[in-house]
């Protein structure tokens, strides 16, 4: 089985940090409309709204570059990458996780458009089967948990979930 090591390593994370920092600096003039709203009698540079985002952006860029550079130097000196259990990804794990996150997005879409009860019932069956349950027990579990949650959240805590059975 193929093993992917260093699929997501520090160099990528450093690049993300730099990107975030640059993006933050770029959108700051758009985002901070208070740049002209001066407070009388104060130093303009430090008190207006865009100073703090600029400092945060600088911190993001510095730490991103630091991470980026330190890992490149580490690799150049022939040292092993920092061991971390979550790093060693296999292809099936990546695919299953990605599918799960896509499924989660579909689940939220279902809940919003079809309703909490139906969305839960469908998704719980798929998830339960994916995780190794026998189909008939998974269906029983899905219906029981959906009804229980609908009752608890809808009736007891009065949360207006879309498409409740116990309204």
């Amino acid at each position, binding site marked *: 089985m193929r093993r992917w090591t260093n699929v997501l390593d520090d160099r990528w994370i*450093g690049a993300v940090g730099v990107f975030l920092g640059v993006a933050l600096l770029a959108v700051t003039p758009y985002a901070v*409309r208070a740049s002209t709203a001066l407070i009388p009698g104060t*130093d303009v540079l430090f008190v207006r*709204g865009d100073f703090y985002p600029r400092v945060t952006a600088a911190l*993001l860029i510095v730490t991103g570059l630091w991470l980026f550079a330190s890992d490149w130097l580490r690799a150049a000196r022939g040292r092993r990458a920092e061991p971390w259990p979550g790093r060693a990804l296999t292809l099936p794990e990546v695919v299953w996780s990605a599918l*799960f996150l896509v499924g989660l997005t579909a689940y939220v879409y279902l809940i919003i458009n079809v309703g909490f009860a139906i969305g839960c019932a469908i998704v*719980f069956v798929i998830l339960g089967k994916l995780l190794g349950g026998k189909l008939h027990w998974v269906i029983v579990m899905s219906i029981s948990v959906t009804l229980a949650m609908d009752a608890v959240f809808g009736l007891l805590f009065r949360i207006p979930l879309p498409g409740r059975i116990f309204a």
Partner: protein
Amino acid sequence: MINNIVLGLEQIADPQIILIIAFGVALGLVFGALPGLTATMAIALVAPLTFALEPLLALPFLVGVYRGGLYGGVFTAVLLGVPGTPANVPTVLDGYEMAKQGYPQSALQYSLFGSVAGALFSSILLFTIITPAARLALAIGAPEIFALLLFSMTLVTYISGARLPKGLLAAAIGIFLGMVGLDPIVGTPRFTFGHVGLTAGVPIIAMFIGLFAIPELTALVEQRAREVYRKGESAATAPVRATFSAPDDSIRLRDVVRYYWRRILVSAGIGAFIGVLPGIGSETSPWLAYAAARKGKHGDNLGKGEPEGIIASEVANDAVVGAAFTPLLAFGIPGDLPLAVMLGALMAQGLRPGPALVRDNPEVLFGIVAAVFVSSMLLYVIVRPLAGVVKEVVRVPTWVLAPLILGLSVAGSFGVNNRAFDLWVMVVFGAVGYLMRKTAIPLAPLVLAFVLSSTLETSFRESLLLEGDFSVFLSSPLAIALFLLSALVIASSIVLDLRKKSEELPEAARASTERVDE
């Protein structure tokens, strides 16, 4: 001080409140016992359910969930050799070993007695120091608050367990996320991109549920992927489940106190000291206490089922709790990660811990303090009868557990603001949390920086409004001391990191030599 203690106890001297604390402890126990769930997740998932309750019902309930959640991890640690929470890792070393030797009941009881001892110690300590801490909180101004928050953030990155750049990057991302919403001084929208849903900032509970619960679900899915593609390997690596072969291996509380009172006091002191330091979590104190136990009389037996190892770890673990509430309630700085989530719940109730709470709602503040004390006592009362039930809970199969967590996550995220936007926030941060886990970026700095970001910025800009320049931060001795401490923390972290790298050099050289020889 006595008046404040009486005030606090008066607030919760109501059977309804005592019952809700007990229910919270029981619920937290179940959450903590379930593999993969933590006290932090428990609070994030149940917090939305408390928003319909009054503060003096909601907050004691969350305190109970926290208390139960911290202890619940002991069950998987002792019975399965899997720590329920990071703070239970030292308990595995001796607890699981003792259980494998045929004394699981003793191991659980040593843990229970240790937890209750630590919890009571820190609760009494909290009662003692909360009043002077509250007075100090009222006496300090914006520059001191800014310095204290900055110090907390540096401490968090120091002990985050990962390299300093990753901790700082996580903190910077947390600060950025905290800026989304309205400018705290001028009130204009920032980084909302015109979206109404972001006007009040990133929804905190949905974000926490996404960061903590969704990656756990993906971990369960990945575990299943491994099982499917590695059939045949799983039997060899399956953990040995402890069986209850010894019918009567129970121990008595008075024997534990008589033989281990010194260890209890030392470990409680370590836990309380760590807990009071803002930003440092309960994961650190059990290890420090365990290390101290290694130097004790039975140090050589640690790791072989020695009761002192279990007691040291669990006393320190629970001693953190009461102490960690001190910086939260007095200064608004969460003592550890579950309290950061609880801070979000407090803010959603319209309460802002810190000097404002001390001044405007002292009955709520001392009510929470009293709830911490009462939950410590209730822990013993509840765990004894429920232990049998919880032992079965750890056997819940993954295909039942995962849908439960998913359903709770969705209902909890939606229930805060009753809008679909929060569900999408949960999904986005679920992906973010997954990526952070895979790339070893710690969550603690991000979460703590996020909850502290607003107060950090407000205190910074209010300080500058006082004088108009940076000299305001040099006018306070406390602020100067805290800035120097922050610089020291960062400098020592860099030095430790460099020293670790220089120790790796001979290993790398040896490894490359071996490769050449091959």
